[in-house]
């Protein structure tokens, strides 16, 4: 079993594929796919430059500088879909649901500070759009079945919508600092939100009350991932503003709110991922080495 993957460019986001492969989005605008057990490079393909959305299971959403959105199938490197961003706006980020049916996009009009979020269906049909706060969208998340959508803004507010009918379900206004990363648990019961306050807030999506606050990360939380069974969480982030400051990736027991394990990392962590069987983790730090964790 490989302890780490060696890449030929800095890796900024990681996701396991169902067949034992690990995909990494790299800072040379390529996606590389390795055999996670042997570390062997299996494929690489060029993606669009510009923001690369979260690597949802098997799919990557990218936004080109011309606001063109593409969905890439990581297993093949094929483009599943290409669509223009909403007219007259600059598209800033995009995420796709695990079932690939819903695409969420954030956009901004020139010379304004307010972002708008848009939801698209499987065929690229626009379903809903809504204002998403002042200062820019910091994080977006879709539940695995595409039923729930959440967006966090740098003005510190978090909003969640019913993605099917566009209804605003909650606007959380009592977080004093910004949320940088969010994920729904695989069953959609929880929304985990982590950010500048170095905590993870677990919202119960029926009531939108905070059921648990996970405290123990010494850094600001920049990325998090639920285990496939939803019982554990991996978190990572950055310390102040020095890129090369050592940090830790934490493994949490969600129900108990306890830290199960800490893994030392040499510098800022930008992405964490669980393998489909939940036994392995991968960490992206923008370095050419991707540490693999036994979980």
């Amino acid at each position: 079993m490989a302890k780490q993957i060696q890449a030929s460019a800095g890796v900024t986001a990681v996701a396991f594929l169902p067949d034992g492969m690990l995909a990494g989005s790299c800072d040379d605008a390529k996606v590389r796919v390795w055999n996670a057990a042997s570390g062997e490079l299996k494929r690489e393909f060029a993606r669009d430059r510009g923001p690369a959305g979260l690597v949802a299971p098997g799919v990557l959403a990218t936004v080109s500088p011309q606001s063109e959105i593409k969905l890439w199938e990581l297993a093949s490197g094929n483009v599943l879909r290409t669509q223009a961003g909403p007219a007259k706006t600059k598209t800033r980020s995009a995420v796709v649901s695990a079932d690939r049916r819903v695409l969420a996009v954030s956009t901004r009009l020139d010379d304004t500070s307010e972002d708008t979020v848009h939801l698209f269906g499987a065929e690229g049909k626009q379903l809903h759009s809504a204002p998403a706060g002042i200062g820019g969208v910091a994080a977006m998340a879709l539940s695995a079945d595409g039923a729930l959508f959440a967006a966090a803004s740098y003005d510190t507010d978090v909003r969640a919508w019913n993605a099917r009918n566009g209804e605003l379900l909650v606007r959380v206004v009592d977080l004093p600092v910004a949320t940088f990363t969010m994920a729904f648990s695989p069953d959609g019961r929880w929304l985990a939100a982590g950010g500048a306050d170095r905590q993870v807030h677990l919202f119960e999506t029926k009531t939108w009350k905070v059921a648990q606050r996970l405290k123990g990360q010494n850094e600001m939380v920049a990325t998090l991932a639920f285990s496939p069974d939803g019982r554990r969480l991996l978190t990572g982030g950055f310390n102040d503003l020095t890129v090369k400051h050592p940090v830790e990736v934490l493994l949490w027991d969600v129900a108990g709110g306890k830290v199960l394990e800490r893994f030392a990392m040499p510098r800022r962590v930008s992405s964490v991922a669980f393998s489909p069987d939940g036994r392995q983790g991968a960490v992206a730090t923008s370095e050419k080495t991707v540490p693999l964790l036994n979980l």
Partner: protein
Amino acid sequence: MSRRLSRREIIESCISRGLLVAATPMASSQLYALWAEPGALKPTPTEVLGPFYKKGAPNQADLRIQGDPGMPLVVSGRVVNTRGEKVPGARVALWHADDAGRYDVQGYRYRAELVVEAASEYKIRTIMPGHYDDRPAQHIHYMISAPGHKTLITQAYFATDPFFEGNPDAHFKKRNIVSHRDLVRNVVLHEKNGAAIQFDICLEKA
């Protein structure tokens, strides 16, 4: 017969000869706009909010902390709208990094949310912000809101910052950090009280 000068040329000539002087420090573009169309000011250019805004900062004018390193700095300015009207009641949230380039996100060091009064002016005593990796030009973040006006998000920069290599006109576009030259302010140095900048804010009506 000599060529008839354009209004801009006349204004430029007057500025260069000291014949047209702004009563309060303002960027030349603002001065042109004010002269050409009395009462129609240009709104302050916008900037990114950044990741470290924190809600609920105290309404405090003195942000200095005993024993903290950093050159003392006074920041002051007026809050007006594009019609030149005062905007009493405007809330001016501002925050910046400490001398080492770190933001306090756990507490409220170097953060304030001021409410401007009838004179529509604000003034804080603080220190010169430090530099940091991701955004290597010293800056102060602002978010200004007022009833009936668009919320403005912007940043103030310092002409003396080594980032601008002594010439902000030539270097303000470096690394795509600063959105607009007008946001880089001249620094006045006082023998005893350190540095000072004036940063006037012009809001758009909603």
